């Protein structure tokens, strides 16, 4: 009580000092508190992110799909281990389509009879290029880059590419 009266006096008498000693120390304590908060937050962020960046430095994960000649024109081959469908279009171009539906992430399946991919979750449909035939999906299927070396088709399954629509540049042709 006594202290509070004193404190009040200090406040009422601004000529003595602009900031009272009590306010000054209060300010220091608050700043220290903020500093500690930032340190803790920073440490936690570092704790979570330091290891993550190191573990994702794997460059290329190439999966050998097989010789070019083993894939017929206008055909789709499933590679469940690599989570993709390898499609060879009418003109001989290859594209490796992710089996994740772009709507909500379910695994699509290839319907040979109607030549299209169907999602069992919300009946989105995609053509052999991965282009949307039927909503609710709004984007074409994601794809993995395809490389052809010495007549062997290889798929870079560590490098998923997102796209809105299909275009010819996404295809890979045998030389």
């Amino acid at each position: 009580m006594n202290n509070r009266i004193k404190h009040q006096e200090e406040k009422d008498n601004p000529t003595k000092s602009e900031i009272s000693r009590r306010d000054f120390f209060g300010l220091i304590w608050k700043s220290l508190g903020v500093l500690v908060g930032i340190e803790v937050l920073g440490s936690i962020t570092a704790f979570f992110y330091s290891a993550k960046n190191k573990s994702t430095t794997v460059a290329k994960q190439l999966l050998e799909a097989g010789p070019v000649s083993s894939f017929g024109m206008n055909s789709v081959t499933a590679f469940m281990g690599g989570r993709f469908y390898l499609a060879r279009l009418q003109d001989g171009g290859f594209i490796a389509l992710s089996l994740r539906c772009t709507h909500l992430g379910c695994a699509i399946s290839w319907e040979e009879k109607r030549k299209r991919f169907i999602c069992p979750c919300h009946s989105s449909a995609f053509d052999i290029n991965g282009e949307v035939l039927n909503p609710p999906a709004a984007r074409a299927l994601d794809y993995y880059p395809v490389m052809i070396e010495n007549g062997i088709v290889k798929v870079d399954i560590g490098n998923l590419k997102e796209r809105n629509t299909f275009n010819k540049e996404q295809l890979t042709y045998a030389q």
Partner: protein
Amino acid sequence: MHNVLLHIHPAKVSEASLRFNRTFGLGGMAALLIVIQIVTGILLRFYYVPSPADAYNSIIFLKSQVIFGQFIRNTHHWSGVFLLLIAFLHFLRVFLTGAYRDARKINWLFGLVLLLLIVFSNFTGYLLPWDQLAYWAITVGTTIISYLPLAGNGLRTMIIGGKELNAGTLQTFFNFHTAVLPFLLLVLVLYHFWRVRKAGGVLIPETDEKAEMVPVMPNLVFREFIVALVLLAVVLIFSALVNAPLHEKANPAYSMNPTKAPWYFAGVQELLMHFHPFFAAFIIPAGVMVFLAWIPFIRSGDKPTRHWFFSEKGKQSSKATALFAVVITVAGILFNQYVLNFEIAMPKIPALVSNGIIPLVILLFLMAIYYWIYIKRLRLSRSELVQVLFVFLIVAFIVLTIAGIFFRGKDMELTFPWRV
């Protein structure tokens, strides 16, 4: 034990607050269910292995080799379901008796946070069995996040630690489910109770304010004991009779048909069938959450009655609005499914407009017509109007959830519950 029981209660409570239909004991039930979850959860942890290779097998082992293993798992599963339902009913009760005003404002917000924590606890637990049901429900549930504008994709990648569910996801979910969330839940539940007591205990109608004060022991403690025993009996009997679901081990290459989000997100998933994801997963849920958090801070000007549904007029308008919400939601689902699909009907317009803005405007227009034709004539007070909107949103949400759980079958086509 006796002392502890008396210590966490006030010495005396109003006789009016003891009436069962004042609170239905829902808050206390939720607290008991949390205790059941902690006890059974600790037991399960002794056998569960949080890795994609072993998680499923550890549950098979628990089911087949461990005495009471299946029963403990059932109890944990079903009391988790009950907890979410009871907490939701508690939330309805608190709103509909007006127990969110004045000294209870902040506690309303903490209650909402607790409800969200319970949802997250359920969601993180859903993944742990690592069966087909878990894998695909969480895949769908987390992909909904990626539709949030700007940060959505990054947020999803951060939460699941990659492009698709992996060992890191399972470990993160396990850690949240068994450490972070229970800890937060426990601390906030205690705080929630403390604030109820600080606000003067259970809210009672002012007409009952003169009711006699009676000693807590035995009047309240015995009643709580009876409710606890009955609830415990119901949970245990249910768990003895009905097994928690467990499908085949998760197979990332093959989706179940149909794949559904966990049941409490079935409403959002149903909304996703009808609206562009930006609206279904972001604008509408965020709008509802903001409205719910804002409720205690809306200036009403009318004197709180603390009666169920505020007043006779409040009761009448709530009943009519509930009916309106059921009709418009069911009609909307059927119309969109069988008569007009906005996205297919207007292929030239961006889906955000054709399947987002246009149906939303139509919906708001129908609500406005309902307001002009019926609600306006009742001359409701501000509180009663807020209540009308609340009832509409809650009932529509319940209808969507029921439709998503019970009326969506193969390929997510509409069907009857016995064919699902």
